[in-house]
């Protein structure tokens, strides 16, 4: 691949990325606080520190493009054109908004899979349908490094490369698959080189560097949209929190990865923007207030929505008897 264009995005784009990153960080934390208050325990898979990867990608997509988030950062999906913060919060709080985040095929969301990586072949099917129907849409499929080891991912990449489909695979490499570290799971450091085995362009990027992530995502998505076929991006990041909240992390050496705190994409990107002169201290305070207000208002709105389908609706869906 060529080096990313050094041309900076417009000030408007730079600030949108910052606002989305801030919204993802604050929104996810707020949602988790509500969930743990409701259940008395936390069980969510949280992804602070990894949000720059989906946010950078989503800001390069259109309403009808297809996109699969890593489950740890699914909340960031609000940044996809067509979806809203309300959709993300409704999804998190068990309400049904007009466009359910997890399943709205017309906005390119076609569900995920509890068996990780399995959804990759489904998104390849979406890419095939997009080609046959000449929609011009691209598909971006994000998964973790753990899921990337699974067989369906391999088949997805084989077919995507053989048929030169408009799909980009992204490995959000946070170095852990649940409690199993990268040391036990693969014998390479740069997972992007797997792309070579399929005959796909591939690139490794610092997934905690919002600007680099945006430029790499843009390059690959533009290339794919122009008919360049599939590619693989490995975005390195670090799982700052446990696999699930409350997980004692007995598998992790104490203090491991503490230095990653300093690569946290939010303060890091903020510093970059201030150095570039597009963000002032006042802007930061104003945006914090705006985002907090928007999250709180949306949460109130969502909490007043009724829980969508009844148990009776669900049981009525059975075919040939219950």
């Amino acid at each position, binding site marked *: 691949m060529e080096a990313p264009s050094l041309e900076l995005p417009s000030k408007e784009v730079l600030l949108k990325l910052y606002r989305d990153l801030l919204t993802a960080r604050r929104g996810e934390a707020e949602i988790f606080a509500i969930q743990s208050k409701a259940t008395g325990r936390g069980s969510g898979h949280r992804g602070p520190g990894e949000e720059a990867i989906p946010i950078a990608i989503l800001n390069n997509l259109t309403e009808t493009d297809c996109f699969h988030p890593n489950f740890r950062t699914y909340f960031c999906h609000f940044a996809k054109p067509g979806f809203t913060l309300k959709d993300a919060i409704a999804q998190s709080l068990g309400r049904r908004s007009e466009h359910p985040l997890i399943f709205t095929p017309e906005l390119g969301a076609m569900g995920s*899979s509890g*068996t990780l990586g399995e959804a990759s072949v489904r998104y390849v099917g979406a890419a095939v349908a997009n080609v046959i129907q000449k929609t011009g849409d691209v598909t971006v499929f994000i998964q973790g490094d753990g899921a990337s080891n699974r067989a369906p991912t391999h088949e997805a990449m084989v077919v995507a490369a*053989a048929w030169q489909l408009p799909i980009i695979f992204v490995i959000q490499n946070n170095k852990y698959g649940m409690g199993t570290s990268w040391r036990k799971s693969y014998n390479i450091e740069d997972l992007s080189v797997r792309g070579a085995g399929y005959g796909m362009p591939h690139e490794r990027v610092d997934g905690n560097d919002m600007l680099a992530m945006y430029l790499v995502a843009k390059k690959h998505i533009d290339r794919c949209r122009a008919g360049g076929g599939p590619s693989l991006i490995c975005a390195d990041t670090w799982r700052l929190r446990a696999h699930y909240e409350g997980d004692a992390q007995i598998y992790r050496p104490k203090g491991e990865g503490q230095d990653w705190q300093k690569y946290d994409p939010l303060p890091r990107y903020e510093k970059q923007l201030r150095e570039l002169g597009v963000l002032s201290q006042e802007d930061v305070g104003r945006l914090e207030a705006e985002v907090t207000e928007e999250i709180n208002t949306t949460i109130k709105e969502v909490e007043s929505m009724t829980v969508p389908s009844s148990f009776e609706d669900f049981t009525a869906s059975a075919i040939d008897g219950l």
Partner: protein
Amino acid sequence: MAEIRYIEALNQAFREEMRRDEKVVMWGEDIISMNDVHGQTRDIYDEFGGDRIKDTPICEQAIAGMTIGAAYRGLRPIGIYMNAGFSLCAFDGLFLKLGCKSVGRYVPGDIPATIYGVIAGPIGDGDNDHGMSPESLYAHAPYLKIVMPSTPYDVKGLVKSAIRDDNPVMVWDHAWNFYQGHKDGKIERMANVQEVPEEEYLIPLGKADVKREGTDITIVTYSFQVHNALAAAYNLAEEGISAEVVDLRTIVPLDVDAIVDSVKKTGRLLIVHEAMKRAGFAGEILFRISEHSPDLIPSLKSPFRRLAGWNLPLVNRPELVPTMGTIMSTVKEMV
């Protein structure tokens, strides 16, 4: 009306539906390069081109996933497995995902996907992977309709209905249907031919068909075993036993009404399937009869029986599955 072979009727079903709706597409292993081995997909590439029919790499999980994903994005795809056993490579996609519309939203509807695959039976490659019958495994999943045809007329009407259905449908076809069938009390090569209308017809999913009427015993079966049952019934008639053969055609939905009507009339029940006996579909059929008409089973003139494949891997030994001979001897023990 022309008499045509089973494989020709199936091929007509595919081609007619592809002509009728440009959203119908298909993919699988060697479905262009080898016409899906038996000729099911013959001439489809020439008529419709490479956007509508695709040879996949040997990637069974991808065949399932792509069929689901493409159905979500507006197509009406048919995912083809060269052998039904190969679909088990994709069991996750087919059992847990197809029909369930993703984690978190288990609502059926608007998933116009068809899965088609071939059961080779206890011959051919002589191994379990090619030969096995998977229907009981998939019948255990929510939202999957399962079609198991036996005759040219049925396969055409059923496959057309499967493709048009807005919910996922599996068609598990038996390779023996392609090459042999019942004729005058024997299983003969090239005998599975029938007059099939040239004008359009559909067979609704969930309607059994009484393939032969009788008064002494009901043989409930499906797929190629229908031919064995018909051959057995033909010969039993010469010995004074009148057997009725009920071809289920689809096991999900199950036409319990038709089974109950027949068993009420004959007072005896034999269930026959090729899939292994343990946890096989015969047990489900029996319970469904009992739940539908609790008094029927206790009133039978002789205890109900089942004939099914042995609980062994399906190797190249035809006696591992029911035959005309074992059906006849079992019926004679019951009547």
